[in-house]
């Protein structure tokens, strides 16, 4: 009986650990996958790691992350240590109260911390703006900047702010354990308080400071939410970069970078734990233990006669660090810059390098995860992008709200290469604001081996024969739009009756169990692995699924006969953008045929550049030595007769948007 109990509990523990670690282990395994699927194993490869180190967006975010984490750790460790010492010179009651207050930020939800810091910074910037304007108007000796935005400084301040409590929490117990008398003794022997602090208190509380610093560093590297709200537009941390990448396509590059992030945090934690264990062992064994060679060397090195060597080393390290940071900020700061915000995995990174090389302009390339988040970021005033790449309906909204700057097309000669059918579209009827970037269609992706006949109609989504096999797109506009197409209504209708009827079609199918679930990014794994038969998504993404489909899966794409949505993402410049000349140069560069060819090849979304569309099959053959699969190319760049039956989304009025929202909530799952 006892035996089975023990076996049972072991099994339980095993299961718990499996549950805890399976996702991470899976992630690590798939970071070595040769294919670019997260569901199908195609052999071992280090390809994704290689790609990672060549991806400048990621490397830049790694640099930002390391820099902000290191600086924040140093500042927070110093501030936290002295704060803890200050706390300990207070009376017990006040100290305990303050320590409790210190704990609150750590328990507080990150999102609350992030949002409040963001609000705080923005409010401060506004106050500063008025002050600076007044100050500049009354004197002319010093010119204060009038416009401050979220950026590296605010990111750093936020990190320092949330790190300090962790340092205090780690240093405080060491102070409590510490015998106060040696501090007095050191002063008695001739030290000033500061001297006694360095010579006596610091060695005593060092383990607490080191573990506090390690935890602060780990927290900084890890942090996403607080960074997200305080980094603004010009810096993004690694976690933010990863999040941006997950939005379009989950590539194993993310697995690789996540693996590295996981491992580095793990190493830090192991280090801090090891330190503690060794410290305890030393205290326990005390005299009985013989010091190891390393310890003897360390002890020798800590003798006063090596003081100057130690100081020199520390100074050299500090100088080196400051030098590297200074050099990098000089290099990056002295060059003209253009701030671009786009979507994750939405550009061939080589193009950025090429542009920088050709023009000497530094591209600060950031990503947002959806039109809606981009919109709210712009509205909050926290961003100072020059160029953004929103989708059609969002452009309409931004123009309506006077948030875009009209372009000077004389500075964008390559605009002439854009096909006429992508100009003067409803969202920008006189084409004053936009340079089209990509276009594509929404359609049905299905596994031909899992359905009885070829699918040509949206009706397949609501067909009981496919019960449990259909993935509903988790986006109200698309999901209800598909039903509107099926019912023959306009996809931009504002008639509540029509919209409700479309909704009922979806809801009915949902009640009958036709849908397996509402998904966005999971579509990739589900379809590639053959775990669902039918889904709706964008043509470009279909191509990447085909590339990764598992054995026995035969994915097909169709733009249904009732018609579908087609979309255009276009480059625009924000009102009062600070780097307008550079922004124009960037847009012109991206509109070029060469850039469009490279982009099309990299992101598999069709180009609006007529020449690029025409040249691509030729270019492909030259590049890869095999002919382009024209059938697939027709899917990526839909031919005119397909495009004819497609409609573009328009920006809906507030009432209709609210109806969409309510219905979508009502659908539940």
């Amino acid at each position, binding site marked *: 009986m006892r035996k089975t109990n023990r076996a049972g509990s072991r099994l339980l523990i095993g299961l718990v650990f499996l549950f805890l670690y399976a996702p991470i282990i899976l992630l690590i395994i798939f970071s070595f996958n040769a294919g670019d699927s997260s569901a199908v194993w195609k052999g071992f490869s280090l390809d994704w790691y290689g790609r990672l180190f060549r991806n400048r967006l990621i490397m830049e975010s790694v640099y930002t992350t390391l820099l902000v984490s290191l600086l924040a750790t140093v500042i927070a460790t110093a501030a936290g240590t002295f704060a803890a010492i200050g706390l300990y010179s207070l009376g017990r009651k006040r100290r305990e109260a303050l320590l409790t207050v210190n704990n609150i930020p750590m328990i507080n939800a990150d999102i609350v911390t992030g949002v409040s810091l963001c609000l705080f910074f923005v409010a401060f910037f506004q106050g500063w703006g008025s002050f600076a304007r007044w100050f500049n108007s009354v004197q002319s000796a010093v010119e204060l900047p009038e416009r401050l935005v979220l950026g590296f400084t605010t990111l750093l301040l936020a990190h320092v702010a949330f790190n300090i409590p962790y340092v205090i929490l780690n240093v405080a117990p060491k102070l*409590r354990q510490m015998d106060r008398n040696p501090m007095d003794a050191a002063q*008695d022997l001739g030290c000033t308080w500061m001297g006694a602090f360095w010579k006596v208190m610091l060695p*005593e509380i060092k383990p607490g400071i080191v573990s506090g610093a390690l935890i602060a560093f780990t927290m900084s590297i890890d942090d996403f939410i607080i960074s997200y709200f305080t980094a603004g537009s010009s810096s993004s941390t690694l976690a933010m970069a990863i999040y941006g990448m997950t939005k379009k396509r989950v590539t194993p590059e993310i697995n690789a970078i996540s693996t590295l992030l996981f491992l580095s945090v793990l190493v830090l934690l192991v280090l801090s734990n090891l330190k503690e264990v060794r410290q305890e062992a030393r205290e326990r064994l005390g005299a009985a233990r013989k010091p190891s060679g390393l310890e003897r060397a360390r002890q020798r090195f800590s003798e006063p006669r090596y003081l100057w060597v130690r100081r020199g080393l520390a100074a050299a390290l500090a100088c080196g660090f400051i030098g590297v940071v200074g050099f990098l900020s000089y290099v990056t700061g002295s060059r003209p810059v253009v701030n671009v915000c786009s979507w994750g995995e939405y550009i061939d990174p080589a193009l950025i390098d090429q542009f920088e090389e050709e023009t000497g302009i530094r591209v600060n390339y950031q990503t947002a995860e959806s039109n809606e988040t981009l919109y709210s970021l712009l509205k909050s005033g926290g961003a100072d992008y020059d160029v953004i790449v929103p989708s059609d309906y969002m452009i309409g909204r931004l123009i309506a709200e006077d948030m875009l700057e009209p372009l000077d097309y004389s500075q964008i000669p390559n605009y002439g290469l854009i096909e006429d059918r992508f100009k003067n579209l409803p969202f920008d009827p006189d084409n004053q604001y936009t340079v089209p970037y990509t276009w594509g269609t929404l359609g049905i992706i299905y596994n031909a081996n899992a359905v009885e006949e070829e699918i040509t109609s949206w009706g397949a989504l609501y067909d009981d024969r496919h019960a449990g096999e259909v993935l509903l797109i988790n986006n109200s506009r698309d999901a209800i739009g598909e039903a509107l197409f099926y019912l023959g209504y306009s996809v931009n209708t504002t008639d509540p009756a029509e919209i409700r009827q479309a909704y009922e079609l979806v809801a009915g199918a949902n009640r009958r169990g036709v849908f397996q679930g509402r998904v966005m990014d999971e579509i990739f794994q589900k379809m590639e692995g053959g775990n669902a038969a039918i889904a709706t998504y964008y043509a470009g993404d279909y191509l990447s699924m085909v590339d990764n489909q598992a054995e026995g899966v035969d994915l097909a794409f169709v733009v249904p006969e009732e018609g579908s949505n087609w979309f255009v993402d276009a480059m625009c410049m924000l009102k009062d953008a600070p780097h307008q000349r550079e922004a124009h140069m960037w847009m012109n560069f991206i509109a070029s045929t060469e850039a469009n060819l490279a982009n099309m090849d990299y992101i598999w979304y069709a180009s609006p550049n007529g020449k690029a569309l025409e040249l691509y099959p030729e270019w492909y053959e030259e590049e890869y030595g095999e002919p382009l699969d024209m059938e697939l190319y027709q899917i990526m760049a839909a031919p005119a007769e397909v495009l004819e039956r497609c409609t573009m989304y328009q920006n809906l009025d507030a009432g209709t948007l609210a109806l969409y929202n309510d219905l979508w909530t009502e659908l539940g799952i």
Partner: protein
Amino acid sequence: MAKELIRLSDCTMSFDGEVVLDGINLYINDEEFLTLLGPSGCGKTTTLRIIGGFLTPTSGDVLFDGVRINSVPPHKRTINTVFQKYALFPHLNVYENIAFGLRIPKTDASGHKARLPEGEIDQRVMEMLEIVNLRGFEKRRITQLSGGQQQRVAIARALVNRPRVLLLDEPLGALDLKLRKDMQNELKRIQKAMGITFIYVTHDQEEALAMSDTVVVMDGGKIQQIGTPEDIYNEPKNAFVADFIGESNILDGIMRQDGVVELFNRRFQCLDKGFEKDEAVDVVIRPEDIDIVPEDQGQLRGTVTSVTFKGMQYDIIVDFYGFKWLIQTTDLSPVGSRIGIKIDPDGIHVMRKSQYSGMFGDYSSYSEEYEEISDANYGPEGEGSGDEE
């Protein structure tokens, strides 16, 4: 030869409105061994910390060589301290602990910061190791030393700086009895050899009497008596001092005239003079100053109620008219026997009434009292900032 070195003049110290020291006036001579003696919380450690510079008195002055040093920080005073529980630096070895003070650059008269050459440091540390008998221990870690050895390191660390004054805050409190006796002799020897002023804090009256040139008895933040050990023992100023130093029977008496005091309606010859006629007084009679005589020859007659064998003598409790006395004698008188006592005039010490009258000196609850006395409550004192843990 006795030159005044330190003077505390009307020093008062209060923490959060609580008065810990109340108008202390004290001077300390050069090369003197002075002991601050008193129970926990009497203010003796606070006094020491004021002299050391760790506390600034709320009011009053601290003079060193005639110069006011109230706000001079500890590191600028030529005073060093041996702390309670030693306060050694755990991350340094014995040698580095002792060399600590020598390695700190000193500012000389011309304002130049100067560092002692390694050779001199080495020589002085070795010299100190010799003095405290710790040769060969230089490379040991502090945690590898016994309590007595740590104590010696603490003393060496303080003395190596050649201070004018060494402050010792209950330095022997954590040692066992035998070691304590040895260290008492050692300290006395070092003090004599180096010719340094020692200011010693303890609550152990035996230690105080054995080592000091001058004893300062403190209670309730006030000095109760200053004097040589003999003065303090033989001529206590009040019931507190009489009780705290040694054993005492303290009785209510009436001074009938110079040299005559009345106890239990009987008149006794004494040597004390200068009291009002018929003044109510406290009378101290030391247990060893009482002679036991046959009942009919005694000035007082009583019944033995308890006997304790103490090795050198018996402690016997005798009931005289309901008041219990402690008598130390070498002759055994069994419990229940009736005895008489005789007291010589020089065995009687008359004191004026004080706030302590009636609080001490009655052995009715003998066993408890004895326990309290023998209880070596060596621990951190509850004084100081009131925030110790």
